[in-house]
Structures are given as structure tokens and as C-alpha cells.
């Protein structure tokens, strides 16, 4: 590369950077951060479910908080009442639901009485068919049964016993919570009564800090409450507690690892360069890279995915290498060559490094996954910009950098000599590593379980389990989502789903399910006709048996979703009801006891507006998809690197330069075996990074114009900075992240160890 007018390059690049900043300023306000893992799915999996509904659903569920409190005072009044009073002092908690007032209980009764002709359940509907022959028999059996508790009052008021039918149907639907003194209660195995409380977090509580304050407040209240009432016990459940635990853990990790890392990095660079400037220069090239990547992604997609941000870490690792390579060159030869001469010396290699990486990432652009495409675009733009920053600005900015030999030069010289002349080292080390790799890789197992992302705190898990056992409301988040442009259409679709679920229950595909007990208006009309048809027959039958009846009321009072939602009977069901501003309505049908998620999903494939959502299985699917995809991409990238190396250096040398890349990948994987960890999406992401960084090492070393010892020192420095930053992840308490660290550290170390293999053979002859 000839640099006839380097000053202009710097100015052009500065102008472009300013343009990028302005662009970012324009794009940022109208963009948003997408953190839904489902949107990473290949589009055909979730195309049926409108994203707005999914968003509303997950947001609402994440806002729920549940408590179960046991213990009574001397007057047998539940201590839960006192806990409820305490909770009222927290303004962020909305819609706190404790006991039902007696007025609400009356409303409850009135609702079922008033709308009994419009609130027909499946079983009653079946009995009412055929002019109500079966319903008549059922009524008689209820009357005769010593166990049914039918009163003459009930018979007079509701001769068809429709209220009774609806109540029995509700009770058989697996609602474990029963009403006691107005409270929803459950009992544990020891027979202790637990009172159920439920609250919803204010939508405004979003950031981690506020979350943490809230959890602190609740915990303080709990301690206080338990001190006052030692006989009470409190169980809590809610995403809030888990997310707070996770963010606190992350904060601790970052604080511990982050602070030591930064201090160590500053000390290292100060010691090597006797100047803080290289650190600032590296930061500049990283920031410009991130800026360019961000603008390109936002310009194309108008949103950034979380995954892209996570992967931008790799930009840091790779782009620091560019800066450090140039700066080491300056540190050593600053006195004898001008900044631009140094640039000419390393420029071609830098360009080659960035081109190879770009080609590797370019292939990822072809992947049909939005997340991967974003990541690739971000990396291509970011790395090019980082490299160009080194080109255009570093010669200017590094003027006057103190010049001296880099530390440990004699040691590095001896190390290089060993690799040049000692066949035991040159052949033995790669072969030894190859042997270890084969051993390790053959023992690998694969894990796509999303649970590895979180290390769940035991005290929360125990409470969650106890609550699930008592309430039969599992938190495994498996549902059918039924939706439609209007509530009526949604309810009609729900009606079509019900028989399928009953069938599935009989086939033991699922254990339990809960669908809203509300009929569509169309269904209510049909039911009204059934009742009108059945009433005279049933009246006749009862009279024949000498049972006095009052005339049967067959008036249909249309039961709209509005009436239902406003009545206390929808308490506990409202959580499952979603209505968007445009009238689109959805409801959740939680399903438990699912063994085979795919079979359940297949049940409703032919039904429009019904989607099976298994959050965990979808996440696992995403993990598995991406793991395979990235494995494929790593192999493709490796082939690209191999082909380009062979074109440049001929078949034999090209092959030799490939050895470090291949072995760094296999050793990275093998190290997982050593730590007893499985292969996950995260280890594949680390491999991707190992390849990107490793290729830099090889290319710097194979630069025919550079000095081998400076190359070695530069990549050693690069290795140490990478290990200090990303390598710290090794100590994370989350399995996914620590396995990322494991692969990265061992892979990069292998790449560094073997990089002298890439020394140009011509140099050997010289």
C-alpha cells in the first residue's frame, strides 16, 4: 500500500467518523434493543404468533409476584392479612390481591346465577343435547344423592342445575386453590393451610437498580414480618426475584473481574510501552469499530439484538490486536523508521488479517437467522473501521511514543530459535496437542439446555417448588396461545381447541390444562337454543317424579368479555387474557405434564390462530440451531482461511499455517472435556472468536517484512490482553459463560503457542 498523502487519509477518516456519529445520533432514538430470544428463531417457527402478543405476554408474566403465607393468630385469623397490609406500603406493587370481600363473594354468586344460561360447560352441553334426556337423569341423580347437598332452594331457583354443572366443571379443571374465609388457599402435604397473595409489578420498574431496591424492600418487610409473627411462614415466587439475583451476581462478577482486569491492563501497557497512550489508541480504534458496526446494523435493521451486543465483545478482542501490532512495531523501531514506514511494514499484514476475518464473517451474512446476520454485519463494519483507524490515525497519534526494546527480548529470541531449529519443538508440540485434542474431543458431550444460562439460587428454587406443588401452577411456561382479530373470533377458536385438549388428556399427552371459562356469543346463542329445546322435557320429567318445579327461565343474557372481565369471577383468569389496542385478543391456555412438546405442537397445526408456545423448548431449539449453525460457519471460515493461505503461500506453507488454526479449535474444545463441561452454543461462539483472533497471530507471524521477534512480542501482548479481558469469564459462576471462557483461553493460548509455525520459510533460508 502506498501512502502518498497520509494527512488526507486521516482527515477523510475523521470526516467519515463524524458522519458516523451524526448517523448514530439520528438512528438511535428510533431504534430499539431486541432481547427476545424467540426473534432469533428461524422465521418459520414463530411466524404464526404475532410478536406484539408474545411481547405483551412475556412482559405481563414477568411482572407477576406471588406469595403464600401460612400461620394464623390467636383468633384463627390468617397472618396473611398482616403480610398484605405490609405489602400495601410498597407503591411499586399493583393490583395486590388478598381475600375476597363479602361483597365480591356476593357478586361472584350473582354472576353465576344471572348468567347461568350463558355459561354452559362442555359436559352440561353434552347432557342438554337430545332434548335434555341425559340432563334430566343427571338432575334426578343429584337429588337422590346423599352426597350432593342439593337443597329445594337450589331446585326452585335453578331447576336445570346449570350453576351446579358449571361449578363442578370448574372444580374438575384442576384449580388447586379453594376459597376459605374469602382467601384463596391451598394445603401442603402436612395439612397446613397456606393463603395465596398475588401482586403485579408496576410496568415502570424496569432497570436493575430499581429492581434491586424493590427486592431489598420486600426482604426487609419479610424479616420484619417474621420477627413479629414467628409462627408465620412466607414463600415467594416471581421473575423479579430471579432476575434480581442474576443481575446482582453479574454485578458482583463484573466488579470483581472487571476492576482487577482494568488495573492489570493499565499496568501491563504502562510497563511495556512506558506510556498510557497505547491504551488510549487501542480504545479509539475499538470505539470507532463499535460505532461503525452500530451504525451499519441500525441502518439496516433499525434495531440491535442483544446477541449482537454480546458478540461485539469479539470485536474488542480482534481489533485490539491491530493496534497492538502496530504499536509494538513503533515501540521497537520508532527511532529508525517513520510512523508511515512502520505502517508500510505491517500494513499489508493488517489488511490481510482484516480481509480474512471479513470473508469469514461475510459467509455468516448468508445465514437465514436475523441474529447471526446482524452479528456478521456488525463485525465486518466494525473490524474494517478498527483497522482503518489504525491505518489513518495511529501514525499521527503515535508520534513521539517512547522507543525501546520490548521486555524479555532475549527470551523471545531463544523461543523463536527453538521453533526454527529444534524439530522436537517444531513437530513434537503440534503432534502432542493433536493427540490431546483427539482424546478430548472424542469425549465431548453436547448440551442445548437453556438452564445452563442461569445458575438458579437454591433458596428461590425451593420456594418455587413448594408453591408449584400446592397450587398446581407450574412455572414451566408451556401454553397454547389462542388469538384472533376480535374477542369473539378468539373465543370461537378457543372452543375448537377444547375438544382437542380433552382428547390429548385422554391420550396422556398432557396432564392438565386451563382454558378461560367463557363462551363466545355464537356459542351462547347455540346453547340458548339447546336450553329452550330441553326445558319442556326436563320440566315434564321432574313433574312425573313428583318433584315440584318452578317454570324454567330460559332467558339468554349475552355474556360479553367485558362483563366477565369486570366481574370478580375472572379473578385469576385475567392474567391469561390479552387485548391489544387494535382489538386483537389472545388468551393463554397453560398446559402441564407435557412429555413430548413436538407431539403437542402437532395437535393444533390445522387450527388457525392457535399456537403452541413452549418457552423452554423454543429456547433449547434456538440454542441447538445456533450451535449447529455456528459450527458449520466455523468450518466454512476455516476453509476460506486455508484456501487463501494456500493461494498466497503455496500448498505446503499454506498447509503449515493452517495447523495453528485447526489445533487451536480442537484444543479449545478438548479443554471442555478437561473441565467436565458440555459443548454449548456458547463454546461455539468462543470457537468463532478463537479462529478470528488466532488467524491474526498467524498472519502477523507470517509477515515477510516484519521482524519475527516483534511479531511474537506483539501477539504475546495481544494474548495477555485478551486473556485478561475475555479470559476472566473463566471464573464466572454461570456455566455458559465459564465454558465460553474455557474454550477461549485454551484456544487462544494454543494459537499463540503454535503461531511460530507460520514463520516464513524463506526467512529460515536467509
Amino acid at each position: 500500500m502506498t501512502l502518498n498523502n497520509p494527512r488526507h487519509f486521516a482527515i477523510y477518516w475523521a470526516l467519515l467518523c463524524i458522519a458516523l456519529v451524526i448517523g448514530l445520533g439520528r438512528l438511535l432514538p428510533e431504534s430499539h434493543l431486541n432481547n427476545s430470544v424467540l426473534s432469533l428463531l428461524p422465521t418459520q417457527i414463530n411466524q404464526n404468533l404475532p410478536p406484539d402478543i408474545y411481547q405483551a405476554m412475556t412482559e405481563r408474566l414477568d411482572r407477576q409476584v406471588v406469595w403464600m403465607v401460612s400461620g394464623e393468630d390467636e383468633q384463627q385469623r390468617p397472618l396473611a392479612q398482616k403480610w398484605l397490609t405490609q405489602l400495601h406500603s410498597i407503591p411499586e406493587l399493583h393490583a395486590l390481591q388478598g381475600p375476597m370481600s363479602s361483597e365480591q363473594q356476593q357478586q361472584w354468586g350473582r354472576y353465576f346465577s344471572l348468567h347461568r344460561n350463558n355459561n354452559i360447560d362442555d359436559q352440561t352441553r353434552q347432557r342438554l343435547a337430545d332434548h335434555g334426556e341425559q340432563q334430566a337423569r343427571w338432575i334426578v341423580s343429584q337429588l337422590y344423592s346423599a352426597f350432593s347437598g342439593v337443597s329445594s332452594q337450589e331446585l326452585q331457583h335453578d331447576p336445570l342445575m346449570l350453576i351446579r354443572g358449571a361449578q363442578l366443571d370448574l372444580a374438575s379443571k384442576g384449580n388447586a386453590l379453594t376459597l376459605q374465609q374469602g382467601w384463596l388457599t391451598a394445603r401442603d402435604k402436612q395439612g397446613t393451610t397456606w393463603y395465596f397473595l398475588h401482586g403485579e409489578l408496576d410496568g415502570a420498574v424496569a432497570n436493575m437498580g430499581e429492581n434491586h431496591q424493590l427486592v431489598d424492600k420486600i426482604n426487609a418487610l419479610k424479616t420484619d414480618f417474621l420477627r413479629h409473627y414467628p409462627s408465620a411462614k412466607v414463600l415467594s415466587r416471581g421473575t423479579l426475584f430471579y432476575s434480581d439475583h442474576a443481575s446482582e451476581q453479574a454485578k458482583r462478577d463484573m466488579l470483581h473481574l472487571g476492576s482487577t482486569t482494568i488495573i492489570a491492563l493499565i499496568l501491563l501497557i504502562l510497563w511495556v510501552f512506558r506510556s498510557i497512550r497505547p491504551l488510549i489508541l487501542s480504545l479509539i480504534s475499538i470505539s470507532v469499530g463499535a460505532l461503525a458496526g452500530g451504525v451499519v446494523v441500525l441502518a439496516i435493521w433499525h434495531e440491535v439484538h442483544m446477541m449482537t451486543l454480546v458478540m461485539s465483545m469479539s470485536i474488542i478482542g480482534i481489533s485490539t490486536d491491530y493496534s497492538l501490532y502496530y504499536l509494538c512495531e513503533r515501540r521497537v523501531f520508532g527511532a529508525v523508521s517513520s510512523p508511515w514506514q512502520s505502517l508500510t511494514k505491517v500494513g499489508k499484514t493488517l489488511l490481510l488479517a482484516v480481509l480474512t476475518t471479513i470473508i469469514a464473517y461475510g459467509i455468516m451474512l448468508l445465514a437465514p437467522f436475523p441474529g447471526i446476520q446482524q452479528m456478521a454485519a456488525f463485525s465486518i463494519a466494525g473490524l474494517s473501521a478498527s483497522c482503518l483507524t489504525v491505518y489513518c490515525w495511529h501514525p499521527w497519534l503515535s508520534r513521539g511514543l517512547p522507543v525501546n526494546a520490548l521486555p524479555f527480548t532475549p527470551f523471545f529470541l531463544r523461543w523463536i530459535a527453538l521453533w526454527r531449529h529444534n524439530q522436537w519443538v517444531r513437530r513434537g508440540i503440534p503432534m502432542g496437542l493433536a493427540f490431546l485434542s483427539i482424546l478430548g474431543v472424542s469425549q465431548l458431550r453436547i448440551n442445548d439446555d437453556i438452564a445452563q444460562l442461569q445458575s438458579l439460587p437454591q433458596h428461590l428454587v425451593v420456594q418455587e417448588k413448594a408453591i408449584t406443588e400446592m397450587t398446581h401452577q407450574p412455572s414451566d411456561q408451556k401454553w397454547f396461545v389462542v388469538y384472533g382479530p376480535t374477542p369473539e373470533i378468539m373465543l370461537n377458536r378457543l372452543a375448537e381447541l377444547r375438544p382437542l385438549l380433552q382428547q390429548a388428556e385422554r391420550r396422556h399427552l398432557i396432564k392438565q390444562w386451563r382454558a378461560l371459562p367463557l363462551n363466545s356469543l355464537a356459542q351462547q346463542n347455540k346453547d340458548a337454543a339447546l336450553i329452550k329445546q330441553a326445558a319442556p322435557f326436563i320440566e315434564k320429567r321432574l313433574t312425573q317424579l313428583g318433584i315440584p318445579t318452578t317454570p324454567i327461565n330460559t332467558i339468554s343474557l349475552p355474556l360479553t368479555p367485558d362483563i366477565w372481565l369486570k366481574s370478580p369471577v375472572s379473578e385469576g383468569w385475567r392474567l391469561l387474557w390479552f387485548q391489544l389496542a387494535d382489538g386483537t385478543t389472545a388468551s393463554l391456555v397453560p398446559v402441564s405434564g407435557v412429555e413430548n412438546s413436538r407431539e403437542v405442537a402437532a395437535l393444533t397445526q390445522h387450527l388457525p390462530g392457535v399456537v403452541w408456545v413452549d418457552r423452554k423448548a423454543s429456547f433449547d431449539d434456538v440454542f441447538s440451531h445456533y450451535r449447529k449453525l455456528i459450527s458449520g460457519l466455523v468450518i466454512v471460515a476455516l476453509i476460506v482461511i486455508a484456501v487463501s493461505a494456500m493461494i498466497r503461500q503455496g500448498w505446503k506453507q499454506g498447509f503449515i499455517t493452517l495447523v495453528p488454526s485447526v489445533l487451536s479449535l480442537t484444543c479449545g474444545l478438548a479443554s471442555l472435556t478437561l473441565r467436565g463441561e458440555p459443548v454449548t452454543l456458547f463454546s461455539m461462539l468462543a470457537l468463532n472468536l478463537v479462529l478470528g483472533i488466532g488467524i491474526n497471530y498467524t498472519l502477523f507471524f507470517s509477515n515477510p517484512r516484519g521482524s519475527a521477534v516483534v511479531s511474537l512480542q506483539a501477539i504475546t501482548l495481544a494474548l495477555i490482553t485478551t486473556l485478561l479481558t475475555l479470559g476472566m469469564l473463566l471464573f464466572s459462576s454461570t456455566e455458559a459463560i465459564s465454558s465460553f471462557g474455557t474454550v477461549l483461553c485454551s484456544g487462544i493460548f494454543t494459537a499463540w503457542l503454535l503461531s511460530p509455525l507460520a514463520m516464513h520459510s524463506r526467512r529460515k533460508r536467509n
Partner: protein
Amino acid sequence: MKKLRWSLVMSYLLILPFTKAATLEQVQQQLTSHPLIRAHFEQKRTIKGMPQTLNSSGDMIISRTDGLLWQQKAPFAMRLVLKKESLLQQTENQPPQVITAQSNPQMFQFNHLLTALLTADKNTLNTNFKMTFTSLGNEMWQINLIPITTPLDKLFRTITINGGQFIEKVTLNDKQGDTTLITFSEHRLSPPQLTAKEHADFDTQ
């Protein structure tokens, strides 16, 4: 719901007094002595405000291992099977309704109570009822039960059980003023295992 509670309460009330003892303790000691009891029942149900009583009759079996079978024969057929984990009810030839402990834990709680009673767990009885035991002489006795826990206290005012060597009469007085009187007769203890037909009747599948 109500129906289930009643049936459960019924079943342990029936099991409780199969005894010839003269004190409550002895009554309770006797509880486990018979593995299987068969009896005929006549039931008279008086619903307040209704002119005539509703009469029905049939057979019942209580087995320590299998649970309770309540088989009404007249005026129409009705079968009720209560097991440790499930409850089945079938009227005439309609499809049976099965409720499991899993789908209805309230019932499971009652079952827990039932098991406690089968093993003469005095504590459990004392927790749920205020009990009065009266020896009527000549090996006859009467137990008066007043429920003290919810939901029992919402359903019954009092429950009275009369018996001698076996249970003979159960009177249930509802909160709403209705009464059900069940009289048992023709008690049989042999064979001590269920016959093949009885097994089939107990089948809840």
C-alpha cells in the same frame, strides 16, 4: 365439589364405627379388624320444602385395601367408587366421571383424613370434629360429630352414627335443614377378599 366432600366424609363415617366396643378408644381399636365389609343400605332423603322423601337403596362394600363402593340399585342405577387416588361416579349407562387426586387436591386432603381414620388416627378425628361418644348399653353406641373445620362445618350441622357390632344408622343433618338417613343391614364379612365381580365394580378405568 360438594358431592365429593360428602362422599368422602360419608365413607369414613361408615368405616369408623364397625365395632362392638363400648368406649371410643375401643371403637377406634376395632377399626382395623375387618378387611372387608358388605352391607345393604336404604336411604331416605328429606329435602326441606319438598313434599315427599326421596328413597333409594342398594349395596355397599368397604375394603381396607380398595376403598369404598357405593352401588345404588333403585330407583335408578348409580355407582360411586372411592379410591385412594381417584373418585368415579356413574349414573345409569352414562359415561363415568372420574376425578383424580391430582386434578382435585381438596379431595386428596379428605383422603388423607380417610386414611388417618382407617388407621384409627384419633388425632385427625379430634382435629376435625367435636366428638361425643355415648354407650347405649347392650353393646350399642352412638357417636355425635360436630364439624369444627372448614369446609366440613359449612356442610353439616351434625352427624350422628348409631351402631352395635356393625354400623347401623347414619344421620346427616345439613346446614340448610335437609336430612339424610341411611340404614344399613345384612352385614357380611366373608369372603374376606373381593370377588371377581366386585373387583370389576371397583374398577375405575
